[in-house]
């Protein structure tokens, strides 16, 4: 859409919306439409001079804002919103269907009712929605237990795999919310072991037996605030190491799977990726597993550590490391 059609669309929606919210403060209305109060004021000034042919006062849209509160006295023909566009219908119907597939969702019944009304209201504009689909893969039993704990505000005991350290941990967590980000489900809560807010990936909880809803009320301390995930789930910390890897073509998938902060194309289909990591053991695993398809550019210590691990593993098979470059052991 162009800027002109965007604004026309907004103006047509604004009038009935304001009418449905009599006396709403200007900043709140601006926020609801994702525009600045200044933009909204411009919109209102424009609507003020629009109306039916004739241009007499009784033919114009009648709205006023006194102080910061807006009132629409006469919307002329714009008393109802325009029906949903194909984009709007697609966005809302697809999302509602995705949620409706989530097992054990509280409010599921309300969602079903809403979806039925919505599908009826959008009519033909919703037909494309069948061709767009979001599958929120769930771990149904773990999810159900976690959701119950959030709903009842109860503490949970988790047996949780810290994948980056390959460590199975036991901990008590006061749940705060359940999130889906980038295709993964998370429980966010106050972890009594870490004494901090932590995110737990549901697929790393050790199966349905790995979560136990305790008969203890959840009580996250007042200072416990949800993590801002708008920039992604993983936030580089000050203790993180900068890692630069050069990937051969068969290992390009790494850029898709790991939270890389930089990607550079190299000749021959090779790819240089930069990532930041807190733990080293998962990096060892990554680099070892990639074998000949990766070259460690940074940090220098990583390659040496991987080399030592590979030699020890080969020794366990009763084998020597191949004769390497100048620095290799013989």
């Amino acid at each position, binding site marked *: 859409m162009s800027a002109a059609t965007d604004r026309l669309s907004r103006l047509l929606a604004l009038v009935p919306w304001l009418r449905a919210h009599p006396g709403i403060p200007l900043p709140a209305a601006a926020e609801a439409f994702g525009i600045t109060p200044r933009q909204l004021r411009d919109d209102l000034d424009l609507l003020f001079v629009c109306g039916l042919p004739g241009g007499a006062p009784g033919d114009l849209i009648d709205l006023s804002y006194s102080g910061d509160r807006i009132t629409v006295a006469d919307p002329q023909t714009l008393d109802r919103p325009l029906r949903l566009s194909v984009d709007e219908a697609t966005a809302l119907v697809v999302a509602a269907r995705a949620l409706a597939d989530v097992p054990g969702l509280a*409010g599921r019944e309300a969602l079903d009712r809403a979806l039925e009304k919505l599908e009826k209201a959008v009519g033909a504009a919703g037909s494309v929605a069948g061709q767009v689909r979001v599958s929120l893969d769930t771990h149904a039993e773990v999810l159900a237990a976690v959701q119950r704990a959030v709903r009842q505000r109860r503490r949970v005991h988790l047996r949780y795999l810290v994948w980056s350290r390959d460590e199975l941990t036991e901990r008590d967590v006061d749940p705060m919310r359940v999130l889906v980000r980038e295709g993964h489900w998370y429980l966010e809560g106050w972890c009594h072991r870490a004494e901090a807010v932590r995110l737990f990936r549901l697929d790393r909880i050790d199966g349905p037996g790995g979560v136990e809803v305790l008969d203890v009320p959840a009580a996250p301390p007042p200072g416990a605030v949800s993590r801002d995930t708008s920039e992604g789930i993983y936030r580089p910390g000050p203790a993180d190491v900068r890692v630069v890897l050069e990937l051969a073509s068969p290992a390009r998938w790494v850029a898709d799977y790991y939270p890389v902060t930089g990607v550079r194309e190299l000749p021959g289909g090779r790819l240089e990726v930069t990532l930041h990591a807190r733990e080293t053991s998962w990096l060892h695993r990554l680099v070892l597993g990639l074998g000949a398809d990766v070259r460690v550019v940074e940090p220098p210590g990583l390659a040496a550590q991987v080399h030592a691990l590979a030699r020890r593993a080969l020794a366990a098979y009763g084998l020597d490391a191949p004769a390497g470059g100048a620095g290799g052991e013989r």
Partner: protein
Amino acid sequence: MERLLNLTMCLMATSRFLTVSQLGELVEGYEPGVTGEEQEAFRRMFERDKAYLREIGIPLETGADSAFSDEVGYRIRRGDYALPDIALAPDEAAALALAGSLWSTTALAGPAASALRKLAAGSAAVGDGGLDPLTGLDTLAGLDTLDGFEPRVDATDPAFEPCLAAVQAGRAIRFPYRKVGETDVAERHVEPWGVLSWRGRWYLAGHDVTRGAPRVFRLSRFAGPVRPVGPGGAVRVPPDVDLHAMVSTQAPPDRVRTATLAVRRGTGHALRRGARPVHAACPPTELPPDLLTGPPAEVGCRPAEAGRRPVVPADMDLVEREFADTERFARWIVGSGPDVIVLGPPELRAAVVARLRAAAAGTAGAREAAAVPGGR
């Protein structure tokens, strides 16, 4: 902008069809003019305005009131224009608001938000919608009842928007695509059937024209711009197509085999999930004390050949686990270094050893570099 609004309202207010010249007289902002040039400019302006109205989905009806009139007229039927009454209860509005928040940064985030605003405008007009008139946060009320549940779907792939547009338009596309594990980029020609997010990644499903078969493409592997081909509405989507089934079965699993692994105690937790223990028959005294510090011990199939259980070091557990793709499973095992040793089958063992050798060779030069502080 005033002109567009005035035009829309005028067309909504009329029950008769209004001709272009009538609109020119009636609508504030038009100057039909007198000279041929001026009239031509006015007509062009009206054509553009008409296109704007249609672009945002206003149902512009054309016709004539009399069979004798040969000039086409326009009007907007309010019943076609308006969103039908959709009286949402507060909990229903909250559920849809949650749904709308699914699209965090995708091209659908804006449309979802404007759809919710229209629903709020339409729903509240019919009466008690459970709105808070002061904050206007009608659509957010009641979110607490939904388990503090916050789903978000991202679509950062540049190909997402053009693919979605092609699906909506029913239009074929061409794009350069890099298959997984391949260096070369190949041009694809696809009739899109749908886009799907599965396990956090976006896919395009459709008919591959060149290959004459249904195919699934991951949007992150598009290697360049998506170009529409041919007219819109040309793509016929088979009525029985199941996007989810297409994407989830695109890589049918290989033959499933069983691996026998020695896993050091306290490690390999991810690997142990889905694995089952095997109890070694050998008495512990026969086992090498430490696989790593002791002399290189042959851990493997030798005892099995003699019909006995394999020898396992005292600090390792013997487990069995199913796997399908040898190379992928080998990559996973190799990552554990000396903590997981493959006893069988031989092709898995060979794949792991080959990868270990490659890793050792690839990092061989690093020892000296690491040993010198600040070196290189």
